[in-house]
């Protein structure tokens, strides 16, 4: 079980390989791996997006990500889980978030992966500000 908040761009696929290498006890024990990667698109609500700034509340964010993954592993039989979330300045096509669930069977892997990304979106304190041709705008925060 690992959670990381990172300031720099990361390669989700390399992170999965690295995690599996660091957890040799996993080998042969899982039949299903469900992965979600959220990536910054170059358009949103009809506007070209040039960059995004992702603000967070460091200790609270980490605490809530840990709680979410703990909830997921208590609800479904999960062999291991990896969550990585960016913060800071992002460019289009850069990964924002990675959620990986290793499990014996795919029902649990999909359910836990989906749970974490859905809950993360509504409970983890992150705020997005997009840079478009019209300037900076906060996402989902009517003044």
């Amino acid at each position, binding site marked *: 079980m690992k959670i990381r908040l990172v300031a720099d761009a990361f390669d989700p696929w390399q992170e999965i390989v690295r995690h599996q290498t660091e957890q040799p006890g996993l080998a042969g024990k899982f039949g299903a791996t469900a992965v979600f990667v959220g990536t910054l698109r170059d358009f949103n609500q009809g506007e070209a997006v040039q960059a995004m700034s992702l603000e967070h*509340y460091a200790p609270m964010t980490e605490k809530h990500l840990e709680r979410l993954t703990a909830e997921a592993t208590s609800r479904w039989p999960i062999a291991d889980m990896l969550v990585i979330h960016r913060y800071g300045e992002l460019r289009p096509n850069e990964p*924002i978030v990675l959620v990986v669930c290793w499990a014996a069977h795919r029902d649990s892997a999909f359910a836990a992966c989906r749970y974490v990304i859905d809950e993360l*979106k509504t*409970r*983890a304190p992150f*705020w997005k500000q997009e840079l478009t041709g019209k300037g900076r705008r906060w996402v*989902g*925060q009517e003044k």
Partner: protein
Amino acid sequence: MSITVRFFASLRERLGKGQDIIDSKGIGNVADVWQACAQIPFPDNVLAAVNMEYARADQPVTDGDEVAFFPPVTGGAR
């Protein structure tokens, strides 16, 4: 004898500050903290946390607590 207050994202910009340290005297709950820091009524869509846990306006606050106010969160990706 103080409470640390933090503001994030558009709320930080709107209030023109990211942090306040206020005297805990006379502070009973989250709503009191807001009133001590902001000149405007507590907006409906603003969330609060006490010591990193989501909190309601009537949640008690005591000396040494960290209280945060922020807009709806937008983590992850849809």
